């Protein structure tokens, strides 16, 4: 197929901008493949594998922008390249408000805005640790969104931060709330009195959104990164965040959300919590401790209950009267009994929580590439996002997987999450709903079960997103845990019969 390519030397653009450009150009009639990438070795490899490198190696460096278009005709490919170039050049000329101060380095930024107190860092991983260290040494708190930061660098950064009494959120931190503002992928939650410490972005989004629905708000939501409670990092930032929140006058209660700490780290965390001056709720997903919340949903409810002076006891999901009827209406004659559950998740923690629930209820649930009757895929994992946008940003590739799954005769249920908020796709439900509707029109299809993380004030209309899914026949449950339990009940009716 005809291919056109253009290298724009010294034309650095960030990956989200390039993704959006590729998506726009990809909509052009006759265009089949588009790549808009900086010429790093990894990206040049992607071009080669996608057949977009032409007859050999692409001659470009990390600061050179490579555009490649494959189209039905050479003319269309060349036109598309010209359009992309015009779009980029124009964006450069008109980009930003001319009154905006836009320096080329952290030092320049601080010279112009010396009162700055937090650095948000999302540069490629290879450069992130140095920028983060420079920011800490300049007295700034750091939100480190970048991934591919080594554990040694993480430890060094967190030691530096604690020594300077600063927060180092991340690395690979997707979400934080600081002083009422959302950093990264966040939902529009009200400011309030709950301090959150979370190892993962989507875990924090789920709990903060649920608190909002329960009428409570967040004082600060501190993302500590997925490795903070590992033996190597030793909970450095979790412990520091506890200190920060214990002296924060806005914070009345703390929720701590993570996978269970490493055995070596747990005693220190437990000791810190014992000495913690404010009420707190712990949710270490997968840990067995009756004092801790078992699910993200339980954590939110427990916090809200404590603030009301009440106690919270989770109800038995399977004993609810409406459940039997709902399930009977979805599978006449026990059609789905014994089928498999496939989870297609955009949120890592939601995927992890679902897997734990399915393992518990169905006896097994395999993870990502592992074979198994019930499988949970974390589609935000690096293995699924090479050369592709994260499914929270662009739902199209997940919609394709939904279409494929619908053809699998052994599947009983497709289970998924929809995450709204700042940074997420403007319409995450739309493409999924279209794929589901098409699958259903073709005949036999599994049941579709989902939950939506979001708030009434999110940029996407939450009620509308739920309606889009429900109109496509998706059963939308109020939480991720309930969606997983509902999926389990669809393929294993004994769960309800024995409740």
């Amino acid at each position, binding site marked *: 197929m005809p291919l056109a390519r253009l290298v724009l030397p010294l034309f*650095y653009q*960030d*990956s*989200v*901008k390039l993704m959006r450009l590729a998506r726009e150009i990809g909509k052009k009639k006759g265009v089949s493949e588009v790549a808009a990438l*900086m010429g*790093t070795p990894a990206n040049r490899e992607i071009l080669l594998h996608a057949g977009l490198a032409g007859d050999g190696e692409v001659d470009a*460096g*990390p*600061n050179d922008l490579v555009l490649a278009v494959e189209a039905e005709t050479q003319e269309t490919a060349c036109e598309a390249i010209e359009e992309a170039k015009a779009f980029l050049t124009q964006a450069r000329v008109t980009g*930003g408000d001319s009154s*905006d*101060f*836009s*320096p*080329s*380095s*952290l030092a*320049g*930024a*601080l010279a*112009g*805005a010396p*009162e*700055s*107190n*937090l*650095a*948000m*860092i*999302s*540069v*490629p991983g*290879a*450069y992130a640790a*140095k*920028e983060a260290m420079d*920011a800490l040494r300049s*007295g*700034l*708190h750091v939100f480190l*969104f*970048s991934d591919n930061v080594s554990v040694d660098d993480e430890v060094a950064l967190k030691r530096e931060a604690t020594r*300077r*009494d600063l927060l180092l959120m991340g690395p690979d931190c997707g979400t934080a709330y*600081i*002083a*009422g*503002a*959302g*950093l*990264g992928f966040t939902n529009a939650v009200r400011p309030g009195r709950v301090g959150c410490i979370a190892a993962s972005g989507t875990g924090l989004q789920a709990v903060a959104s649920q608190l909002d629905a329960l009428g409570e708000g967040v004082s*600060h939501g501190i993302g500590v990164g997925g490795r903070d409670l590992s033996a190597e990092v030793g909970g450095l930032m979790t412990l520091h965040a506890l200190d*920060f929140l214990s*002296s*924060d*006058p*806005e914070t009345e209660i703390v929720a701590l959300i993570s996978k269970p700490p490493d055995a070596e780290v747990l005693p220190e965390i437990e000791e810190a919590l014992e000495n913690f001056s404010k009420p707190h709720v712990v949710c270490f997903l997968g840990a067995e401790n009756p004092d801790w919340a078992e699910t993200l949903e339980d954590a939110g409810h427990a916090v809200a209950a404590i603030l009301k002076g009440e106690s919270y006891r989770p109800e038995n999901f399977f004993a609810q009267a409406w459940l039997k009827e709902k399930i009977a209406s979805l599978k006449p004659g026990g059609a789905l009994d014994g089928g498999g559950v496939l989870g297609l998740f955009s949120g890592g923690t939601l995927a992890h929580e679902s897997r734990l629930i399915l393992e518990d209820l169905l006896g097994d649930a395999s993870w990502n590439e592992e074979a198994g009757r019930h499988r949970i895929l974390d589609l935000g994992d690096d293995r699924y996002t090479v050369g592709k946008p994260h499914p929270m940003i662009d739902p199209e590739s997940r919609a394709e997987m939904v279409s494929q799954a619908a053809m699998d005769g052994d599947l009983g249920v497709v289970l998924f999450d929809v995450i709204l908020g*700042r*940074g997420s796709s403007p319409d995450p439900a739309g493409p999924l709903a279209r794929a589901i509707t098409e699958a259903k029109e073709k005949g036999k299809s599994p049941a579709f079960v989902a939950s939506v993380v979001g708030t009434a004030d999110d940029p996407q209309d939450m009620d509308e997103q739920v309606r889009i899914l429900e109109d496509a026949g998706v059963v939308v449950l109020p939480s991720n845990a309930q969606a997983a339990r509902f999926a389990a009940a669809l393929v294993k009716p004994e769960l309800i019969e024995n409740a």
Partner: protein
Amino acid sequence: MKDFRSKQLRVVNLGLEVFADELKNQNVPVTHVRWRPPAGGKPRLLEILEKLEELDG
């Protein structure tokens, strides 16, 4: 703790410009840095520059 109680959150953004835009939408003051890989993205040159910086600093 250098905290956010007495002063407003003010952000320097390095990397994805969309994050600066989201902060502006929330009325958070933000300075977006026109970041690009230092030393032309050449690892060897970057290493040399970092060594020089260490010597300097």
